[in-house]
C-alpha cells in the first residue's frame, strides 16, 4: 500500500491550482468516493466600496496550530479521509484565490459537512487579518457577527 503523506496546512504567498490539489486528494485514494472543495476569492465590492486589493497578515506559528486543531476536530466528528487547507497571505487582487479547503470521504455527507465546518472555524479562529484598499481608502476589515453565529451553530 502506498502511504499518502499530505501536508494538510499550507500558508503561502503563491497561488494554487485547484486541479493539482484535487489530483493530490484523489491520488492512490480508492476508498473515498467523495471529494468536496471550496475556493474563496477576492471580491470586487465589499460593504459598498470598490475594492482594488487586499493584504492578508497572519500570526505565523499560531495559524498552523489553530488550523491543525480545527482539522483534528473535524476528523473526530466526521468520517473523512484526506484534508487540505491552503491560505494565501500578502497582497491579493480582484479575482485572486485566497483560500482552499478540500476534504475527501467515502460518502458525500461527511465531506460536505466537514468542509463547511473547517471553513466556518477558520473564519473565526485562525489568526488572519485582511486590510482592504478601496476607492474610499485603506482600512482593516471588521469581524462579522454573522461569522461568529455560523461557527457557533456546529
Amino acid at each position, binding site marked *: 500500500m502506498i502511504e499518502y503523506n499530505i501536508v494538510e496546512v499550507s500558508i503561502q504567498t503563491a497561488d494554487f491550482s485547484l486541479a493539482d490539489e484535487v489530483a493530490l486528494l484523489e491520488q492512490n485514494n480508492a476508498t473515498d468516493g467523495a471529494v468536496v472543495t471550496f475556493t474563496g476569492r477576492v471580491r470586487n465590492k465589499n460593504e459598498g466600496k470598490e475594492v482594488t486589493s487586499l493584504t492578508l497578515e497572519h500570526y505565523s506559528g499560531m495559524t498552523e496550530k489553530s488550523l491543525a486543531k480545527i482539522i483534528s476536530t473535524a476528523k473526530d466528528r466526521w468520517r473523512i479521509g484526506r484534508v487540505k487547507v491552503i491560505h494565501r497571505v500578502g497582497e491579493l487582487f480582484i479575482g485572486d484565490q485566497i483560500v482552499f479547503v478540500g476534504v475527501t470521504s467515502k460518502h458525500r455527507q461527511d465531506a460536505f459537512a466537514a468542509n463547511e465546518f473547517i471553513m466556518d472555524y477558520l473564519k473565526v479562529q485562525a489568526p488572519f487579518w485582511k486590510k482592504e484598499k478601496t476607492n474610499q481608502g485603506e482600512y482593516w476589515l471588521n*469581524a462579522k457577527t454573522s461569522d461568529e453565529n455560523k461557527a457557533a451553530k456546529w
Partner: protein
Amino acid sequence: MIKVVFFATLREQLDCSELSISNENLATVGDLKTELANKNEQWQQVFTNSSLLAAVNHDMVNNEALIKSGDEVAFFPPVTGG
C-alpha cells in the same frame, strides 16, 4: 521575561510589533493587559477594548490564563481571514 506580540490594527495603533516585559508581579494575561494599559492613553484605549483577543504560546486564551517567563503572549483584533 515575556515576549509580547501585536498584530493588524493593534500593531498600527500602538506603533509596535513586539516587546519584552518582566513577568514579575504578572500572574495572568489580565494582569499583563492592565500593565500595558498603564503606558499611556493610546495603550489604555487598546487594552481596555473588550473585543481584544489574546493567545499564549499560540493558543487562544482568556484573561484568567496564567503566564510565566519564556511565554509568548499575543494580542490582536477579531480575525478576518478566509
